[in-house]
């Protein structure tokens, strides 16, 4: 076996192995645990960097293993996989830093970081899955490894949230499995291939393929939090902030959205999906989700819950982009996978900072926090403007392409809907920013746990990650046209999909 084939395995192992070791480490081995975590994260980034370089130079990284005589486990680092892998590895690194600071001194950290690493392994597996079977394997592993993180605090509320999470995701997984097995029954193998593989079946299977599509999307829609399958997401907010960040920005919801991308482009193929009339219903569901999530966000006073509903809404931008037939829609949707990740993780990091530093959990308590925690609040503001689609931010780029895509697909109502959504975004983010910067701070903070020390408004490890991601939010917007932006990479992917 050559090196290119084991490279995907190494990427998986770079978080799996540290995770397993950490799981069995005694609680007191803090330094060893931190070293393992960071070594793994950096190693993963290096490996991915190598593969990014390789893919641009026409290398292919494929690993195959027969689980059954006619069932393969395939890892493939294609362009789309690398997009998601890079996102998760980079954000994992930052989240690990953040979590080390966030959880300092709290109990059960070996367990936490163990499952945290498993969770990233599962995400990377989802990203690099080369066929539907492999995708499912890691999709379910993701469920299992995130459950202990959701219930990590061990309170009754956390257990309840965990139950809801399980009911949704396991039921979704079961539906997904049915669809997959059915599709395997029809096709024999369902390897992700640009342009899709289902078209070979021809139109006489239309009805079956439509039902299978419904099953697959229903299964994936749970994690992608499509309305009405989104109920678990706001509940899961009970988890510690790094977990929320991970669930919302990188791992869970993205796995769902990423799966939908794979299904539409590389299983059905966008043109065949259009022929089967599958895109329009999905676009409608995505649009409803976008509006519904934004509307619900308006009424939340709990900061993390408002962000959660915002996530529901924003992830559906990705799905909406996927359903817009034409390269611009594709670019808008796929690039938003990255952009939303960077922006949303910033917001969650900041929310965690407010809670951890000042005991602020509600928006009504945020008055004047901007002056007490300027860096956190600047990062928060940048990300919030990004979410609204303000120019110079990553969000602007996404919305630009989505609007173009709507035009190309001749779906004018989508443009209107996007505008409405942007207004709603502004409606629920601007009041927060107003409170942060323009309302005087109270006499005494609710529960000031971390004192400001000189320039450090909070723990250093809590501050650096949101600032970095906020800078990335601006960077992805300002330097969108350079060769190192997510947009550039996504354009490559779109070219492959629409290659005649």
């Amino acid at each position, binding site marked *: 076996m050559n090196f290119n084939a084991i490279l995907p395995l190494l990427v998986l192992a770079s978080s799996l192995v540290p995770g397993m070791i950490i*799981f*069995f480490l005694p609680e007191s081995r803090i330094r060893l645990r931190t070293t393992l975590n960071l070594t793994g994260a950096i190693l993963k980034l290096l490996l991915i960097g190598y593969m990014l370089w390789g893919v641009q130079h026409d290398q292919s990284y494929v690993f195959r*293993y*027969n*689980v*059954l*005589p006619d*069932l393969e*486990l395939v890892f493939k680092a294609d362009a789309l996989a690398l997009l998601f892998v890079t996102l998760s590895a980079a954000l994992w690194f930052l989240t690990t830093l953040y979590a080390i600071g966030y959880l300092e001194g709290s*109990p*059960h950290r070996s*367990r936490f970081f163990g499952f945290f690493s498993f969770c990233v392994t599962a995400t990377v597996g989802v990203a690099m899955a080369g066929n539907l079977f492999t995708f*499912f*394997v*890691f999709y*379910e*592993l993701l469920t*299992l490894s995130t*459950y*202990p993180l959701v*219930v*990590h605090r*061990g309170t*009754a509320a*956390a*257990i309840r949230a*965990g*139950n809801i999470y*399980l009911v949704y995701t*396991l*039921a979704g*997984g*079961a*539906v997904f*499995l*049915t669809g997959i*097995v*059915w599709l*395997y*029954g029809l096709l024999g193998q369902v390897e992700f291939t640009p342009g899709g593989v289902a078209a070979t079946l021809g139109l006489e299977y239309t009805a079956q393929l439509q039902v299978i599509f419904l099953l697959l999307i229903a299964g994936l829609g749970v994690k992608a939090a499509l309305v009405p399958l989104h109920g678990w997401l706001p509940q899961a907010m009970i988890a510690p902030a790094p977990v929320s960040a991970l669930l919302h920005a990188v791992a869970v919801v993205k796995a769902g959205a990423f799966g939908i991308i794979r299904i539409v482009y590389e299983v059905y193929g966008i043109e065949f999906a259009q022929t089967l009339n599958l895109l329009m219903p999905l676009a409608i569901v995505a649009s409803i989700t976008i509006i519904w999530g934004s509307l619900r966000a308006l009424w939340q006073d709990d900061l993390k819950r408002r962000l959660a509903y915002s996530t529901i809404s924003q992830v559906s931008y990705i799905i909406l982009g996927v359903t817009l037939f034409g390269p611009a829609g594709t670019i808008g949707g796929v690039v938003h996978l990255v952009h939303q990740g960077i922006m949303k993780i910033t917001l969650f990091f900041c929310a965690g900072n407010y809670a951890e530093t000042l005991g602020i959990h509600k928006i009504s308590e945020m008055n004047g926090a901007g002056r007490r925690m300027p860096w956190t609040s600047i990062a928060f503001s940048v990300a919030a403007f990004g979410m609204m689609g303000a120019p110079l931010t990553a969000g602007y780029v996404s919305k630009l392409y989505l609007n173009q895509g709507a035009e190309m697909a001749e779906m004018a109502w989508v443009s209107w809907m996007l505008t409405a959504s942007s207004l709603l975004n502004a409606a629920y983010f601007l009041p927060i920013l107003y409170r942060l910067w323009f309302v005087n701070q109270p006499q005494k903070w609710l529960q000031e746990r971390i004192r400001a020390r000189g320039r450090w408004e909070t723990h250093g490890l809590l501050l650096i990650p949101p600032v970095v991601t906020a800078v990335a939010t601006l960077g992805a917007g300002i330097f969108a046209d350079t060769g190192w932006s997510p947009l550039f990479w996504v354009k490559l992917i779109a070219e492959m999909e629409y290659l005649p």
Partner: protein
Amino acid sequence: MFDPVPWLILLPLVWGCLTFLTGVGRGGRLVLAGLIIQLVLTIILARQIVMEGARHYAVGGWGAPLGVDLYVDGLTGIMLLLTHVVALPLVVYARAYFSSQAEGASYFWPLTCFLLAAMNALFMSADIFNIYVTLELLGLAAVGLVAAAGSAGSVTAAIRYLLVTLLGSGAYLMGVALLYGTYGSVSLAVLEPLLATTEISAAACLAAMLMLAGLLLKTALFPFHFWLPPAHGGAPAPVSALLSALVIKASFYLILRLWFDLFAPLVTTQAAQLLGGLGAAAILWGSILAFNQTRLKMLVAYSTVAQIGYLFLLFPLMTSAIPGAAESAMQGGVMQLVAHALAKAAMFAAAGVMVLSAGKDDIALLGGMSSHLPLTLFTFALAGITLMGLPPSGGFIAKWLLIDSAVSGGQWGWVVVMILGGLLSAAYVFKVLRQAFLPPVAGIKFKPVIRMLEWPAFLLALISLLLGFRSVEVLNLLGAA
């Protein structure tokens, strides 16, 4: 060429006698060494089967119909390997278990050796009367092990188990009598062609019904499951693990053999659908009851009732006319059997550790277990993954194959049952797991446990999980003819 077949029967008997001679509660090390030898022998045998195919072994050199024949093929190889792979860690576990809790230890080792001997003999037998003797052996050994705990509850469970198993083998023997009376032989190799070529007689049909009914009773298929939970849930943990993982499978193995070989000319699609229906009922009802339990070991025992149901889905699935669908059904059923045996042994062993540590068998007392015994809880969770049929476990591969078979054969009802069953098993597995994440119940003090209790269980769970990656080998062995 060295032939391991006779040694797999003789050796466990020798260990049994020797451990009896060494005295009460002693001989664990001997059994451990013996089992390692036997494991090597089964591996040799499995390799022989893969290379040279199935074969008969004429005990005493007479051959059927005069003498007793043994028969080994791929399925036999799988069962033998499974038995030893499960038993070996459990022996390590049992040594640690009985060193911290003496109840039920006195004749554990000889009884276990005889139990293993009985199973080896049963798996290899190709003679329906000889099978009867091995069934009785297995039953008596299992009852002895259950009763050894000595409490009123376990003695009651043992008596009930004994009576059920005697009723079952009585019905089986009546079937043997009818077959002998009609065809004049008890050898499968002789009977099979006779049944296949001659006109179907009423006696053969009745014999089939009696024998299968007796075996179903022993397999505890719904609605014959009533005896299983108290027997399996009340025994000492190593015994529960052996019984739930292996002993139940022995009678299922016989059903499989008889159904598809000897009685193949008699069985009808309706009968297969009936078995499937009972299996489906077992899955749903067993899972619901498992979820309702307040005692951990009873929960695990009811989960066995439910998991047995999956095995019976292969009967209706095998009737499919679509090529490949029947094959995947068989493969899926056998994978499920293997995966469940490994996972259930791990789960009972882990449950035993938790009960030992908490001092009482109560799920409500498990709070705090996640930090007190993380490895054991992890073991329980890994075993749970197999039972739920989630990837990458062996249980997942089994479920994949079964669902694949059902979908391609167009039998959608069973798909729904399997999906629902998976979700229900998640409900009862997570009922335990989430309790373990809660803070400890006030006033409870966990006793420390020895490491050697935790690792064998973990090993079993790990094998059940990684089985998913090695299923090709299992299916290769199964396919060896």
